[in-house]
């Protein structure tokens, strides 16, 4: 808390900033926001005192081991655990039969349903409903749940199959290898493992699918007994023709094969007819696991009728209802503790089903503490994945580089449980990123017996940049247009429109629009920092066996939702407690957005305490901490809360000292009379609020608050002056963040080994609220995108349906030596007009921009036509170059 306080508080806009027509948006200046400071959790982290889920201990704690399914798909016929349970020191078993019935959709606003629509939800969405999916910086990804809105097939006459049942923590029908079947609690993990070795489970083998395209072969097995393709919340069986599969076998994607999802905008035939250049390619992206460094370990016990669970989750407030449902209790019976989360990247948005296991085991053991340590191998199985793509893309361009049409077909490897929908998100984002006047998307979401898909930081957004950006780059090279120029030409600006519609949508239906967009500014600033013009000389420059290339790309993603709550208590000791329902997963947003209240009410930061991470402490309802929505949502909510606090302060002053509230203001000491001196210290104001009661001490709160916020307010009423509010600020459009990424690479053409020499990322993130954290998000997200392009993958043996890449050295997240030693970043700092603070999220847009820039730089170095799949392994380049530029690898095979 060592930031310099500016002597004068700048004017805070009290309503969303709306630049007058023609007026250029200007950077907003704040006392606290926009300045580096030290987050209050950092000393605990750096001294090892910060407690993550597996760091908690309790008297008599026992340990759980899980029995993973050995088969990719099977039915459990019988379980004989008698020998295991007879062992001394073995305390209990939990099977699928011990789990409660399916929970109702969690939360007053069903988190999953609200957040599961693909980015760019088509019009028709009820106005004012929370923004579509988003994922958090450092922990991104939207929750995965049936996504019936966009991308789903249009209604058909045939009877709709029933929705697929949800996923549980333990199962009698494992649908992927490693899915937990039962849990054993014992005095030690070792003993629990020995016990599981003695359990006899009889399985009935069921058919399975690893490579989605193999699941399309006529007569091939389906990944689920209900079918092989997810259609909305249901499944059906779709098989391609023998002719289609002959193309697949020949390494060509069958572009005219059957799709279950179609979305369009404009007229692609017309668009391609207008094109001077058409570029098309088959393409593939791999499935990758999230691999947060902290696995989803959990520790639980029951005390005084309440279930206490230490968990690793991204969004604490949004995890309560989900976990309560999985455990089969009411949210108020649950105490959820997650002060520190070791990364999630979308895989822990509302925690995860497995959290229920230690809780239910503990219940069986009369409340005895139970620790479930999830190993890295287990995390690789149950820790979720980003779905891979196989497909094709075709884009039309005018001579000047203007995009006339985009057509794409994407098969998504969705995992066994639900339609993930990344593919439709990618397509929707393409309409935003490239502003194509005509576009068509066709897709399939195929069930694979591989780890369940979910949102991974920029779900669909990373893939969008990887899918489309290289095509734009190839076109620019063919047309002889500068790479930055072609992106500027096609970039969205202002309140750009975007989105695709289901076929047969009546014409004239309004499209989505963004609340702000400064992509061109990002490109210009990035080109300047990167030295684009000067570096063009490096393009194709050969030194010995090394060739250099430069590339640029953009990334876009949702960057904000609305309608959440804020809560703070000014205590009689003069301290301001700021309560945050969002989790602390490393993005610092739990603290960064709390500072908005201090900023608005002029409370010195030294006087503030941020309360988070434990539902027993009374926390307000929050956004899911995903989809880059936190910063926007909680700067708005805490702006409203800060305004509420300030309003109450001035009202109290007016009551005590006469006049109207408008005649009072606050400064660092407390409430002042405008033009006069200090009237109420912070401490005194708190005392007065307690005396006044009613709305001032939290006894009365607005009805519009979420039930969770109301419960928190009730717990804290009478402790001081309470500021509490729901974000009711208006918003027209959807909030998106944007990035430009610039990269230079060097490729060894003899070995195919390549490295990145330079990376610059420039963000359109609105107001920068914490520069150090923003840099971390731009680079951290960027490197995750680079990992996708460079090395990360998931490998499966198709015969046994077994995961082979269970170790980090197999699935290869990027190391500190896989990136340049120095990276650069900047932000354009133009405020979003729908947020009084002006801030937007950036955790996701950063991912795709870096991935695309690196891919484009590689193609710039070695030529188009070589890279058709990610990750770009050395042999892909080396073999192709040794082979006259013809790729030698299998273009469409997945999970290799």
């Amino acid at each position, binding site marked *: 808390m060592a930031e310099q306080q500016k002597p004068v508080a700048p004017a805070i806009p009290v309503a969303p900033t709306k630049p007058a027509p023609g007026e250029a948006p200007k950077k907003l200046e704040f006392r606290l926001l926009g300045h580096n400071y030290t987050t209050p959790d950092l000393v605990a982290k750096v001294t090892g005192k910060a407690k993550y889920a597996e760091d908690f201990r309790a008297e008599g704690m026992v340990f759980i081991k899980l029995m993973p399914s050995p*088969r990719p798909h099977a039915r459990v016929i019988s379980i004989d655990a008698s020998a295991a349970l007879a062992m001394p020191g073995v305390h209990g078993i939990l099977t699928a039969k011990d789990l409660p019935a399916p929970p109702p959709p969690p939360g007053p606003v069903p988190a999953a349903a609200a957040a599961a629509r693909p980015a760019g939800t088509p019009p028709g969405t009820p106005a004012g409903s929370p923004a579509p999916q988003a994922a958090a910086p450092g922990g991104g990804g939207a929750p995965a749940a049936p996504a019936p809105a966009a991308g789903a097939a249009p209604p058909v006459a045939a009877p709709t199959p029933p929705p697929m049942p949800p996923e549980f923590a333990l199962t009698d029908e494992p649908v992927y290898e490693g899915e937990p079947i039962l849990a054993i609690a014992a005095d030690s993990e070792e003993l629990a493992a020995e016990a599981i070795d003695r359990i006899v489970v009889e399985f009935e083998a069921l058919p399975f699918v690893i490579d989605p395209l193999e699941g399309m072969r006529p007569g091939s097995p389906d990944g689920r007994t209900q079918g092989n393709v997810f259609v909305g919340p249901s499944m059906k069986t779709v098989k391609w023709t023998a002719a289609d599969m002959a193309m697949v076998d020949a390494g060509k994607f069958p572009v005219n094969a059957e799709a279950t999802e179609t979305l369009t905008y404009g007229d692609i035939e017309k668009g391609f007819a207008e094109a001077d250049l058409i570029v098309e390619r088959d393409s593939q992206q791999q499935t990758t696991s999230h691999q947060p460094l902290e696995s989803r370990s959990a520790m639980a016990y029951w005390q005084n009728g309440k279930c206490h669970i230490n968990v690793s989750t991204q969004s604490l407030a949004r995890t309560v209802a989900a976990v309560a449902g999985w455990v089969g209790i009411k949210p108020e019976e649950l105490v959820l503790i997650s002060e520190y989360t070791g990364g999630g990247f979308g895989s822990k948005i509302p925690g995860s089903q497995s959290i229920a296991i230690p809780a239910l085991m503990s219940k069986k053991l009369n409340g005895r503490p139970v620790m479930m340590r999830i190993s890295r191998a287990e995390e690789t199985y149950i820790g979720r994945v980003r779905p891979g793509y196989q497909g094709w893309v075709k884009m039309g361009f005018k001579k000047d580089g203007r995009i006339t049409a985009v057509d794409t077909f994407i098969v998504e490897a969705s995992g066994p449980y639900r339609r993930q929908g990344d593919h439709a998100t990618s397509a929707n984002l393409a309409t935003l990123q490239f502003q194509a006047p005509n576009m068509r998307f066709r897709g399939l979401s195929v069930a694979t017996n591989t780890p369940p898909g979910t949102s991974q930081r920029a779900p669909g957004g990373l893939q969008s940049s990887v899918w489309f950006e290289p095509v734009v780059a190839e076109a620019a090279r063919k047309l002889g247009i500068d790479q930055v120029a072609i992106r500027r030409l096609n970039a969205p600006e202002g309140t750009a429109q975007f989105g695709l519609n289901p076929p047969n949508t009546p014409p004239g239906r309004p499209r989505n629009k963004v609340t702000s967009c400064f992509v061109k500014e990002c490109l210009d600033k990035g080109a300047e920092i990167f030295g684009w013009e000067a570096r063009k000389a490096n393009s194709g420059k050969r030194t010995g066996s090394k060739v250099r290339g430069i590339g640029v790309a953009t990334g876009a993603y949702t960057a904000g939702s609305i309608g959440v709550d804020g809560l703070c208590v000014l205590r009689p000791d003069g301290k301001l407690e700021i309560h945050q329902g969002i989790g602390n997963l490393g993005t610092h947003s739990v603290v960064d957005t709390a500072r908005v209240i201090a900023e608005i009410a002029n409370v010195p930061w030294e006087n503030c305490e941020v309360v988070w991470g434990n539902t027993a402490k009374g926390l307000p309802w929050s956004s899911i901490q995903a989809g880059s929505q936190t910063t926007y949502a909680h700067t708005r909510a805490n702006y409203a809360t800060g305004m509420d606090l300030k309003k109450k302060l001035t009202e109290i002053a007016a009551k005590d000292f006469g006049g109207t509230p408008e005649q009072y203001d606050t400064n660092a000491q407390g409430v002042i009379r405008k033009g006069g001196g200090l009237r109420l210290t912070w401490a005194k104001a708190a005392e007065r609020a307690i005396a006044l009661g009613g709305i001032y001490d939290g006894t009365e709160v607005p009805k519009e608050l979420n039930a969770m916020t109301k419960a928190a307010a009730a717990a804290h009423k009478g402790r001081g002056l309470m500021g509490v509010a729901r974000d009711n600020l208006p918003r027209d459009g959807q909030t998106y963040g944007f990035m430009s990424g610039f990269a230079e690479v060097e490729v060894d053409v003899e070995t195919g080994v390549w490295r990145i020499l330079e990376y610059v990322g420039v963000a359109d993130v609105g107001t920068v609220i914490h520069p150090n954290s923003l840099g971390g998000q731009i680079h951290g997200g960027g490197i995750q995108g680079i990992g996708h392009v460079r090395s990360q993958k998931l490998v499966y043996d198709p015969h046994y349906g077994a995961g082979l890449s269970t170790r980090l050295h197999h699935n290869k997240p990027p190391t500190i030596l896989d990136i340049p030693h120095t990276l650069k970043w900047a932000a354009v700092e133009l405020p979003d007009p729908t947020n009084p603070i002006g801030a937007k999220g950036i955790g996701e847009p950063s991912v795709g921009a870096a991935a695309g820039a690196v891919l484009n730089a590689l193609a710039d170095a070695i030529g188009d036509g070589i890279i058709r799949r990610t990750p770009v392994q050395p042999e892909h380049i080396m073999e192709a170059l040794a082979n006259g530029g013809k790729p030698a690898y299998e273009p469409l095979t997945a999970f290799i």
Partner: protein
Amino acid sequence: MGNLVSWARSPWGDSVLTHISWDLFWASLIGGLLFLVAHGGYMLFSQHHKRDSSEVDRMEADRKGLPANVLRHGFVARMFHWVMAFSMLTLLLTAFLPIVGVQFAWVQWHWMAGILLTASIMFHIVHATFVLDFWSIWVGPKDIPEFKAEMMREVGIDAPGPKPGKYPLGNRLYHLAVVVAGLSVIVTGILMMWRVRTGLVERNPYMLTDSTWGITYVVHGLMGVGFVGLVIAHIYFALRPEKLWVTKSMIFGTITRRQYLEHHDPDRWVAESKSGSNVG
């Protein structure tokens, strides 16, 4: 000794057979050698009664038309035998030398010898079916009188009843064992050709299920080690002094007229001259 077969967990966690225990190799080897010692000891006291020389003299006088040397194994049959012997020895050596500690890259020699064995056996089946007297080496209920008589002779009694035809009963029982074991190793061995890299078939290691493959390997192993004992016994008999005339016939093709009459029932095995025409 441990278990006679080894089990493993398949990738799906099922218990599947993988191999026989190599202890069984030692068992077979020791068994073969014990038989050798036991039989050798027994032969010291054996009262085996062959045809009286006076009777042989009489028979010889009766059968003046017989050639001096009677063809027992034609050239083709002898070629087959030695090719098979060569391949069998190669198979056994390549299979079992590594187990006794002589390590070398054996697989290629093993499957090549296996192909030779398979080819020779297939030829033999055709040859025996269409050229040789197929049933002369077979064993069946009709052999019971011979068995009884031979047992009596073994204890020194000149029993009536049939004398061996071309092949003595022990010989034929041995052949039967070799047929069973040989066909088993050949069938399982041919399947295994889909497991290893030979260039002859399009490999498909997943042609059978894990458990069927396990059985295949165990059968191959069991029959393979069985051959250790069988081959020891065979070589032993071939080298026994009183059987050397048979061994020589497998080299030179013929036995003397006198050996023919001493050991065989001329009615059950009508002698051939070396030219192959029936005589007598």
